[in-house]
């Protein structure tokens, strides 16, 4: 990961940590994780719902969207649909077809311009996490399997 990405991520991470912790979640980056890889633990607001773990991998920050997948727990593979939410556009266990993911932008090349274009201003990490938390809460924390 280049120096700009490292510095800008370090600038933006605290706001993401604060946002997740305000709803009972947390952001994790372990010693053994490569630079740019984070695990967002999301606690849905629905009663009795259980936490989701989003694997967020940045390559060039803030200029490109991250790979965004789900796992049953930190460090586990993303291939288990039980770790995925049943939200619109979340195609467990393959990808999330949304403008704020690398997978979605790769699939929809027309999103490169217009309202779905990636925005690299402000705090894009916070934007991504806000969107996935909203999507999860919109379906009441339901799981794909």
């Amino acid at each position, binding site marked *: 990961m280049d120096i700009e990405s490292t510095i800008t991520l370090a600038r933006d991470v605290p706001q993401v940590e604060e946002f997740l912790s305000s709803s009972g979640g947390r952001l994790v980056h372990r010693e053994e994780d490569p630079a740019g890889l984070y695990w967002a633990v999301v606690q849905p607001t629905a009663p009795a719902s259980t936490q989701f773990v989003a694997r967020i991998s940045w390559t060039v920050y803030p200029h490109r969207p991250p790979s965004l997948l789900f796992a049953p727990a930190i460090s586990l593979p993303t291939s288990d649909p039980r770790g995925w939410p049943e939200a619109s556009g979340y195609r467990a266990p393959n990808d999330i077809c949304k403008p704020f993911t690398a997978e979605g932008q790769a699939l929809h090349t027309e999103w490169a311009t217009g*309202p779905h274009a990636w925005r690299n201003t*402000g705090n894009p990490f*916070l934007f991504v996490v806000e969107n996935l938390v909203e999507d999860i809460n919109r379906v009441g924390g339901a799981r794909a399997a």
Partner: protein
Amino acid sequence: MPNKPHDIEVKVTFATADRPYRREYADSVTIGTVLGDSLAAFGVAADGTTRYYLKHDGDEVPVDKTVGEIAGHAHVLHLKLRTETIQGAS
């Protein structure tokens, strides 16, 4: 005797914006107006494929509510702009 109208300082934050949108609004102005103004300020062109909405204290604010109804007795109102992709996500 009707209540005296007063202005409320509204701040709208958006994660991908470098700075918040700030403006004073009369308490009778609708949230829909604030939403439209903030989208314009953030350079967001709504095209029907994304739903934009404002949140206050964790809840989505209906566009037909007024600034005064949401702010209550407060003179400052902090709203958060959020998005939902409604087309294209397949």
